[in-house]
C-alpha cells in the first residue's frame, strides 16, 4: 500500500528531509529566515507529486529508446542521457536522481531569494550559488565506509551546479568496477548521467577477479535487464588498476570536450585520477538542445543498443554526435 511522502525537518531544524519511496532528499537553503521558509514550503509542495509523476511513465523511462515523455522531470532525464543513447546502453533512469534534485532546487530558487541552497539526492546534488557564494563539497570513496578523501570548493564564478557520484558500491547498479566516480557538471541530471557513463567505462572486461551478475537476477525489474552488473571486485595488479582508470579517464575527457562535464574524480582500489583542465569549454549543450537530440533519434529509430566495454567508441561517437549538432547549429545561423 502506498506510504505517504515524508516531509520533515531533520534534528537541528536547518535541513529539510523529503522522502517518498526510493527518493530521499536532504535539502538545505541559506539566506533570510522567511526566504528559507518560503523555499522549504515550495520544495515540499513540488515534492508531493514527484514520485507519482515519474511512476506514471516508469515503463518508458526504463527503456533505452522510446517516445519523449510528458513529465518535466522525465524529459530532463531523457535529455541527460541523449548524448550517449546511440553508442551504448543507457536508459533515462541513469539520470533520475539528478533530475529530481534539479527540479526541487528549481522550485526553491523560483519561490525564494537564497544565497545558497543544495538538494542532495543520495549523493547526486543540485546546487544554487548566488554571486560571491561558494560551497565546500566533501567526497567519499566508499559509501559503505564513509570517510572523506577530499573536498572540492565550488564557487559561484565556476559554472558547475550539479554533482553526481556513481560506482558499483552505490545504490544503483554499475557495469564498471570503479569504487566511485564523482562528476561536476552544469546541471545535476547531466552530472548523474555522465557519472554513470564514466563509472561504467572504468572496467577490465572479462577479468576473472570481477564478479558480474545479470541485473535482472538481482532485481527482476531492473532497467539493465540481462546486462552484467558488478557485484564484487577482487585483487587487481597496479597495471590493471591503471588500465581500468585509463579507460575511464578517456571517456571523461571526451565528455569534457563535449561540454557535458566540468570535472571528474575517478577512484579504484585507493587510486585516484582527477581531470584537470585549465579552461572551460563553451559549447555546453542546453537541456532543450539535448532533448531535441533525443527526439531526433527516437524519430529515426535506434540501432540495437549494445553495452559499451571499450572507451574508444564512446569517445569518437560522442564527438561525432556533437560535431553533427554543432554543424546543424552553424547551418542554422
Amino acid at each position, binding site marked *: 500500500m502506498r506510504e505517504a511522502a515524508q516531509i*520533515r*525537518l531533520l534534528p537541528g531544524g536547518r535541513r529539510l528531509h523529503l522522502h517518498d*519511496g526510493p527518493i530521499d532528499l536532504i535539502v538545505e537553503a541559506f539566506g533570510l529566515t522567511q526566504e528559507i*521558509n518560503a523555499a522549504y514550503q515550495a520544495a515540499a509542495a513540488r515534492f508531493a507529486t514527484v514520485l507519482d509523476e515519474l511512476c506514471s511513465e516508469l515503463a518508458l523511462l526504463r527503456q533505452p529508446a522510446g517516445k519523449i515523455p510528458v513529465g518535466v522531470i522525465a524529459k530532463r532525464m531523457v535529455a541527460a542521457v541523449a548524448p550517449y543513447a546511440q553508442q551504448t546502453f543507457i536508459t533515462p533512469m541513469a539520470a533520475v536522481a539528478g533530475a529530481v534534485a534539479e527540479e526541487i532546487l528549481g522550485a526553491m530558487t523560483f519561490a525564494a531569494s537564497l544565497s545558497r541552497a543544495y538538494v542532495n539526492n543520495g549523493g547526486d546534488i543540485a546546487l544554487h550559488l548566488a554571486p560571491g557564494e561558494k560551497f565546500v563539497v566533501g567526497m567519499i570513496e566508499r559509501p559503505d565506509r564513509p570517510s572523506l578523501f577530499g573536498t572540492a570548493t565550488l564557487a559561484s564564478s565556476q559554472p558547475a551546479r550539479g554533482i553526481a557520484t556513481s560506482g558499483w558500491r552505490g545504490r544503483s547498479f554499475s557495469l564498471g568496477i570503479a569504487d566511485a566516480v564523482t562528476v561536476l557538471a552544469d546541471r545535476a541530471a547531466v552530472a548523474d548521467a555522465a557519472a554513470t557513463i564514466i563509472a561504467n567505462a572504468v572496467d577490465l572486461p572479462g577479468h576473472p577477479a570481477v564478479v558480474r551478475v545479470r541485473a535482472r537476477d538481482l532485481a527482476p525489474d531492473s532497467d539493465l535487464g540481462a546486462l552484467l552488473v558488478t557485484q564484487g571486485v577482487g585483487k587487481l595488479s597496479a597495471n590493471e588498476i591503471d588500465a581500468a582508470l585509463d579507460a575511464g579517464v578517456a571517456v571523461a575527457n571526451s565528455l569534457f570536450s563535449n561540454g557535458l562535464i566540468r570535472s571528474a574524480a575517478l577512484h579504484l582500489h585507493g587510486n585516484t585520477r582527477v581531470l584537470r583542465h585549465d579552461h572551460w569549454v563553451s559549447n555546453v549543450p542546453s537541456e532543450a538542445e539535448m532533448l531535441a537530440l533525443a527526439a531526433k533519434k527516437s524519430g529515426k529509430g535506434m540501432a540495437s543498443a549494445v553495452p559499451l566495454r571499450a572507451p574508444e567508441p564512446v569517445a569518437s561517437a560522442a564527438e561525432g554526435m556533437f560535431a553533427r549538432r554543432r554543424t546543424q547549429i552553424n547551418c542554422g545561423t
Partner: protein
Amino acid sequence: MPEDDAIRCDACPVLCYIKPGRTGACDRYGNNNGQLVRIDPHVVLDRAKSRGDSVVPFLDRDREWDGSIVAGPETFVTAIGAGTTYPDYKPAPFIISSEVQGVDMVTVVTEGIFSYCGVKVKIDTDRHLGPETNTVRAQGEPVGHVTTSEYGSQMLSLGGVRHLTGGSRREGTVTCETLLNLCDRKPVELTIDEGATVIVQAGKPPVVDGTQEERMRVGCGSATIGMFAKQWFGKVDEVVVVDDHITGVLSEHQAGKLLGVPETGIKMKGHRSTPGRYFRVAEPGTAWGGTNIENPLSILQTFNPKIAWPKLRLLMVSTTGEHHAYFELDESLRPVEKELPAVLSESVARIKENCEPALSTVLFMGGAGGSLRAGVTENPVRLTHSVRDALTRVTCGGAPVYVWPGGGITFMVDVTRMPEHAFGYVPTPALVAPIEFTLKVKDYAALGGYMDHVRPLDSIVERGGRRHVSARPENPWPLAPGKSSKSDRKSDPRSNQ
C-alpha cells in the same frame, strides 16, 4: 517479468519486484524469505528531557527536538524496525540489557507479525452510524462490523483474521491497509451497511456523513434534567432539554417531581415515553440537540390555560448547551423570547463545560502467538506466565498496553501513544507491530531466555542506523513505569502499568 521467488513491493508506486535477501530501490523494504519486511532504522526511544516529539514536525519551530542523546537507562530500545523472529525458533532480533536503579533489566524487542489483530474504534457521536453487527466497509470491501455502542459513543471492531486472510485477496489487502492507516493516525473513510459514512482518524473529531462532530453531549435530554434540576430549581419554572434521542421536561420529570416543581401546563410534540421524557420531538438533524429544528418553540403545543400562568419562565436548551433560548409567557400564554437571566446563563455554561470534545480513538489489539514468544524464550508458555505474574512488562513501541486476562498475551494499546510510523505490514496480509518485553535479568534466565544473545544497551545505541525519538511525556517510562517519563507530571490515569 516477475520470477517465481521475487515478491512485489507495493509500498510505493515504483512497485519493485524484490528477490529473496535483497531490498527494493528504496533500500527500505526487502524480501525476507518471501516476506516483505521493512528495514527502517531501528527506533531508539530516548528519555530526553527535551520537549519535542518522535519526529521533528516540518516548520514547527516550537517543537523541535534538540537532538541530544541521553545515555544509559535513559534510553529504551523499541521494537520498531527491529525485524521479526521469523522463523520462530530464532532469538528475537534484539535482547538488550540496561541497568535500572541497580537492577539489571532485559528488554526483548521484536516486531511481531500479527495475523490475529485488529483495531477497536470508539467514535464519540450520538448519531446512528448503523445497526449493530452490520458490516463496515472500506473501499467497498468488508473490514469489520458495528459492535455494542457505549455511552455517547459508537463502537466499531475492525480487522481480525477473518477479514485479513479469510476473504478475497482484495478484502485482505484493503483490511490491512485500513488497519495500518488507522494505526498510523491517518484519516480513513468507512461506510456502514444501511448506515452512515464516517471519516475516522485517531485523536481527531469524527466526520459523520460530512458533518464534523464537535462535542459529546453531557447526557441525553432526560439525564441532563436529572443532573441540573437542582441548579434550576427556583430560578426558572420550566426547562426543556432538546435532544434527538430523549427530550426532557423538568416539571414532568422524576427529578422535578422530587424537588416539588409545580406543573406548568406545557404540552410537547412527539411521543411520550415516561413522564418528562419524549421520543421523536423532531427529525434528526444538525440543529438543536441533534434534531432538525431551528426554532425550539416548534416542538411545543399551546400551554394548557387551566394550569399555565402569565410570566411563566421557560428555558429551552440543547444537550450540549450550544443552543439555548429563554421565554416568558404573555397574558395570552404565548411564549415571548427574553434575554437569558444571569442566574440561568451559569447553568447553560456548565452544560457546555461538561461536554467533552468528540474524538475518534483507535486501540490496536493483537495477540502475541507462540512463534513470537519463542523468540523471547525457549519455553514460550513461561513468558505468558511471567507476564501474568507481573514479572515481565509488555510495551508496544514503548507505550503502555493493557494485557487481557486469560490465556496468551493479547493486548490493547492506544496508537496515539506510540512513536509515528510504528506499524508495518507483510503481504500475508498481516500487520507488523512492535512489542517489547521487559524483565529482570534473573527472571529472564529463569524463564529460559536466550542469555547468550543479551547485548548491552550501549552496543545498540552506538551502532548506526538507529532513530532516536523523544519519549512521550504522557507515557510511563518503560523501564521504570512507576514514574512518568516527565517527573513533574502526575501519573497518567490511563496507564495500566
